[in-house]
């Protein structure tokens, strides 16, 4: 994920998480934030921003924003290899 997409993704993720965008840094904890609306909204956000579908159980295993970004990068890599 390039820097511009990452910046835009994190700004929209802050909206989903209902927190100030400045707080959503790589070390921002996610472990206690995965309720059903957050999971569905984050899946939709990833789908919209980078056109990949991340399985919800993998999403809920992410305990920080850094892990989430890694997961998205991995999903994008798998998607590009599958093309």
């Amino acid at each position, binding site marked *: 994920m390039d820097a511009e997409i990452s910046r835009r993704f994190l700004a929209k993720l802050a909206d989903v998480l*209902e927190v100030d965008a400045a707080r959503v840094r790589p070390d921002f904890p996610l472990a206690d934030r995965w309720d*059903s609306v957050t999971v*569905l*909204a984050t*899946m*939709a956000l990833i*789908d*919209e921003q980078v056109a990949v579908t991340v399985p919800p*159980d993998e999403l809920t295993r992410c305990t920080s924003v850094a892990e989430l970004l890694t997961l998205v990068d991995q999903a994008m890599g798998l998607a590009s290899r599958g093309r």
Partner: protein
Amino acid sequence: MTTERSFAVAAPDRPPRCLGIDLESIARFKLLAKPGGRAFFDRVYTSAEQASASDNPVLLALYFTAKEAVAKALGTGLGLNSAPAVSGKDIEIRWTPGEERPRVALWRGAAARAEYMHLSDVVVIWEHTARLACAIAVGTDSPVLLAWLVAALREALAAAVVGESRERGQRYAADPPVSGLDA
């Protein structure tokens, strides 16, 4: 959510077969109503629900809480994987302005689950404040139990509003539970 007050009402005439509850922040549905949230809507709401709610965040939040409450009453919750036991679109919430309660139609996984539980009907009651939407789904049409649940739901939402106002250092905000979506 807890409340210190109790209710002096008659015991339910028939015990519920099952029960589920959900509570959501309406603000999140304002965000999700933006164009980027379309994928969420398409994943969760039927086309009839999308047309009925027409991006009204209160209705979208109430429809979602109703779906989640029904899914919990069915013992599964809303499935989020690619082939869930019960998905958002398996539970259709039908409501017309003026109706006291929404009606529920079950399809596919939800219908199969209800049949497995020998459940002929699921009743949903819902309430909302300016900030919160809450729904209870119950496998009974007992008038006494439903009246009790509506009272409990209103009381719990009022308590939540008071707690929220205290946390923010405000006086009790004018945010009472609202019935009938007429606010």
